[in-house]
């Protein structure tokens, strides 16, 4: 029971890390390698507001989300739209986007160093035990799991019930055909990218309550997010959630029963297995 809960909580953390990239890659077709940096910026904002004015990170997300939305929208309009326009195929767009966002990640690290310095950003928030079924868990991690659950449920409902959500899913499935039914694909792509960035930054703010960040930790989160999005299937919220939970449970099982030293190996073994036997991911569509 204790392992199950630990695994689920870690899975929730992973969902927070990967959900934004899933939107950006699945809908806007931008493999955003600066995703982790956006997460760290969210974490920094939470840290800065908490240490300066004791603002709860759970309130900070209401500032972080709109600001990150606007920032990411601008990034898409200024940097990525030209790539989308000139790309002749999806493969070419992915290649260009990877190179551009890779560069962007360096710019963002540089800006963070300039603005915040390279020091560790570490604070204590809700670092109290809560007892669930007789075992202790960090309250901050449990709260993060709650945030992840809310965020995922909200996104899933919005994508499946609302008209805008349906249009976004249409773009994810087939941008060419979405245009034929009157969907403004460029506009929606920009919005999905911005939304993805906002989700990532919110995830960063929540995660910073229990993980120690510094300006150059972003790349670690990008790698994790990449694995989860590809495992889950590109462009499907359910896949990302499932992959995050599987990864969280898998790592916790290995850490508890085999050896904590093998968690990374286990994560990548799982990743390879899925690439071998189900390359489209849990919920991805087979290429036709």
């Amino acid at each position, binding site marked *: 029971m*204790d*392992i199950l809960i*630990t695994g689920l*909580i*870690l899975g929730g*953390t992973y969902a927070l890390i990967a959900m934004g990239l899933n939107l950006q890659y699945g809908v806007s077709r931008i493999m955003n390698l600066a995703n982790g940096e956006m997460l760290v910026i969210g974490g920094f904002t939470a840290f800065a507001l908490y240490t300066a004015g004791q603002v709860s990170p759970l309130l900070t997300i209401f500032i972080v989300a709109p600001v990150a939305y606007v920032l990411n929208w601008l990034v898409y309009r200024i940097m990525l739209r030209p790539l989308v326009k000139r790309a002749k195929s999806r493969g070419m767009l992915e290649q260009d986007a990877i190179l551009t966002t890779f560069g962007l990640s360096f710019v963002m*690290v540089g800006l963070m*160093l300039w603005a915040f*310095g*390279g*020091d*560790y950003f*570490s*604070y*204590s928030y809700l*670092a*109290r*035990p809560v007892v669930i079924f007789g*075992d*202790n*868990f*960090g*309250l901050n*991690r449990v709260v993060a799991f709650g945030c992840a659950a809310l965020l995922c449920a909200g996104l899933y409902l919005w994508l499946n019930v609302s008209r805008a959500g349906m249009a976004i899913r249409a773009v994810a499935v087939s941008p060419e055909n979405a245009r034929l039914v009157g969907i403004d694909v460029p506009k929606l792509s920009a919005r999905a990218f911005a939304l993805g960035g906002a989700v990532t930054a919110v995830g960063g703010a929540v995660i910073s309550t*229990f*993980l*120690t960040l*510094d*300006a*150059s*930790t972003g790349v*670690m989160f990008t790698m*994790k997010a990449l694995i989860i999005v590809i495992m889950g299937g590109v462009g499907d919220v359910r896949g990302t959630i499932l992959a995050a939970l599987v990864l*969280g449970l898998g*790592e*916790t099982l290995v*850490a*508890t029963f085999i*050896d*904590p*030293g093998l*968690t*990374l190996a286990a994560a990548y073994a799982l990743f390879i297995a899925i690439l071998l036997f189900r390359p489209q991911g849990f919920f991805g569509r087979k290429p036709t």
Partner: protein
Amino acid sequence: MKRRTFFKATTLLAASLVAGAAMAADPIIVGAVAPKTGPLAGGAAVTHWPNIALWVKEVNERGGLTVGGEQRMLEVIEYDDQTNPAETIKAVQRLATQDDADIILAPYSTGLNLAAAPIFDRLGFPQITSSAATDQIGELSAQFNDMFFLLGRSSDLAEDAVEVLAELREAGEIGNRVAMVNVADAFGIELAAVGKPALEAAGFELVYETSYPLGTPDLSPIMKAAKAAEPDAFVAWSYPPDTFGLTEQAMIEELNVKAFYTAVATAFPAYGGRFGAAAEGVMGIGGVNTASPAFQDYAARLEAATGSKPDYWASGMMYASLQILEEAIETTGTLDMAEVTQFIKDNSFETVMGTIDFDDENNNTAYWTVGQWQGGEFKGIKETGREGAVAPILKTGWE
């Protein structure tokens, strides 16, 4: 036309500036290379860079360094090596050949200093390392004649931590059961390789032992297993992110050991800042004599000049390395590095960390090995010949 006049004006201005500068003595070019990005950037931002900023600021406010009867200002050229040894080497080379640096400061961390040792040696610059802890001091100084060591031997750091536990046990304060974990990365592995046999030799029972990869996002399975083993003492040969993570998990799991030790970054001000009163009694690698007026004065100046507090381990040593270099240059009155190196070998130096002199292996044999958070300061409790060690206290919960 307008644009052309603007160009003329700026060229004139630039020319007059150059002429103005030429009247004063040429500046001394100080080359600095260390991580500003990458895994060690967080540590370098605390321990390394602020000291350079403070030193250059204070020397320049005095009017510069006196070399051959002439006062010359310092001018720093900084490179980010991205925590990548290949970049460190390239940057040192670039500083020497393209930037014509007069002095090159030793880089940050054990790994990057070892990587840069051959190039420092070839270029003939003294390499006064202040953040490198290694057991190969003898071999290294034999091979690289101008490499100096301030932070000591890594085995002393681990063995002394075990010794503190053994002393607490002899005094009847703690029991015999120890849980030991380590991060599966360079320094963590090295410390564990020394620490484990030392614990066994001291007669401790290792009730739990494991390693975990650097950057493990969830350390709770480790802490749960450690707690289940019911240890009397917990020892982690850890790195910065997991030093914070393990401490937080220990609080959450209510691991009530009487001795709790985490390695790198326990001495960082951010550790005390984050855990506050809960940090009381936590032991870690490093330590300083916090009661020393020289250290207190240095800490105050560093914070005033750079806004960052020194850590309680290598920060002071980093500043001491700059003091040593400064004294060697001013006393010999030259920027001839061979002469400066010889002076460093032959003399002892008064620094913010106390008197420092080097043995035949270019090693400073007196350094701090174990410290402990007591009353909001990380005080040295174990050393190899420094003054001001305080007695260890027991950890009493996490409130």
